[in-house]
């Protein structure tokens, strides 16, 4: 009997959380497309999310591309396929590693920061104060963050991650593994196709949406004090990472399963 009660309680809580997230998402989307728009706030978020994430995203992509090149060269040489290195690096980085690693890095940096900032604002009544000053917190706080992350992920961070990731492979291949520079570039360009780029950018936009949605949702619903904010921050990062990995599979299936 107790066991059934536990199952019932867990199911009820899951449905309650799903409903609350659904309402939050619908509300966030409606506020993203209806005035007033806070362009100053949007610009600030674009700067914080896009520009300030560039160093960490760039470094991650560089070392990932370099390590990928070494692995493919070593693995490929076992069956005389090391010449496929440029094509595998570019496909691997652009289709998969660029957007996914960039998404996970940005989830750790941005989702956590959003949840902590909004959570602190919630527990110190700053969000309530905003509502009393004729300002809808969804419009001023949530909408700019979601728009900024959804735009910055594909049009700044993942483009940079893709380019630097491929460059990491190129530097190792030409500097250490004896590949000819012009030949490497030609093979890279020959194998890269537009659907690869579309998939990369689509993944980036979807990941950006989930990263900001989770950061805002968990921060906005923070309770208690420092501990509540800490729990929200952890939940934001974990749920954003899970959604990135899940949606990565779905987008890959949509683009490339045939």
């Amino acid at each position, binding site marked *: 009997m107790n066991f059934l009660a536990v199952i019932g309680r867990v199911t009820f809580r899951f449905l309650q959380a799903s409903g609350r997230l659904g309402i939050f998402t619908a509300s966030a989307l409606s506020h993203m497309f209806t005035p007033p728009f806070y362009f100053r706030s949007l610009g600030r978020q674009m700067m914080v999310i896009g520009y300030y994430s560039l160093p960490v995203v760039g470094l991650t992509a560089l070392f990932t591309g370099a390590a990928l090149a070494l692995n493919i060269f070593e693995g490929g040489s076992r069956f005389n396929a090391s010449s496929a290195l440029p094509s595998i690096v570019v496909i691997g980085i652009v289709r998969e590693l660029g957007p996914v690693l960039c998404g996970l890095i940005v989830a750790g940096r941005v989702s956590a920061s959003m949840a902590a*900032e909004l959570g602190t604002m919630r527990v110190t009544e700053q969000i*309530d*104060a905003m509502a009393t000053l004729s300002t809808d917190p969804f419009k001023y706080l949530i909408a700019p963050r979601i728009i900024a992350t959804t735009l910055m992920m594909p049009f700044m961070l993942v483009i940079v991650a893709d380019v630097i990731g491929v460059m990491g492979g190129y530097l190792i291949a030409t500097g250490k593994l004896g590949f000819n520079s012009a030949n490497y570039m030609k093979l890279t360009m020959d194998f890269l196709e537009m659907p690869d780029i579309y998939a990369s950018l689509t993944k980036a936009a979807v990941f950006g949406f989930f990263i900001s949605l989770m950061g805002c949702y968990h921060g906005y619903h923070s309770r208690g004090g420092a501990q509540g904010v800490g729990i929200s921050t952890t939940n934001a990062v974990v749920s954003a990472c899970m959604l990135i990995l899940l949606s990565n599979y779905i987008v890959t299936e949509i683009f490339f399963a045939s």
Partner: protein
Amino acid sequence: MTAALEKNVPKISLKGLHKEFGPKVVLDSVDLDVMPGESMVIIGGSGSGKSVTLKCILGLLHPERGSIKVDGEETTGLNRSDRKRIQRKFGMLFQGAALFDSLPVWENVTFGLLAEQKITRRDAVEVAIENLRSVGLSPDVAHLSPAELSGGMQKRVGLARAIANKPEIIFFDEPTTGLDPIMADVINELITERVKEMGATALTITHDMSSVRKIADKVAMIYKGNIIWSGPRNDIDQSGNAYVEQFIHGRAEGPIQMEVLKA
């Protein structure tokens, strides 16, 4: 005639206000009228429902039952635009000041005016300085960040923000909590002066009796989610209500029993 009629319509009227969080009933059935230009103070112990009452009036919480009228207009269940229209009548000083720590003081003070596009950002600093002066702060405070201010200064900036929009109704949530007695008196003085000067209606919640004696025209006591006594400030010492007596004298013995486990 209309003015006379308006005078008789309560600025805020609560009838049978009921709010619960899960199994916990916080407001049972609150009835309260605040007349125009009046300064009403709600007193009561921690967890008695003071803050929840305020948040229900502000529209931050939604009551399960009951009526909240502002200038005779029902405000429960309003749509977004009507809620915003009512919200414009309100100003609020929060317990911890609730200043936006990502913005400088001047932007905090003029946040509501900028949001409503009543002033440009160019004029905002001047307007903020004017409001800061009215609460006894110097112009150089305008460019500081809230984190650089003392508790008393934060409260004064919060007050400047609450009155910047020239609201008809101002709410004060524990305005003197966490302040030394002198600063608490300064804040009480400022509240009294600014509210009278603006001709605003004030609703304060506090458990600081010196605030009550300084700010209030009328006092209401809330206990277990009900208003158990209300009357003019001068009547509070002869209320004849055992709960009020115990509360204003701060006695441990009496009908209000605190849940304290003794070793």
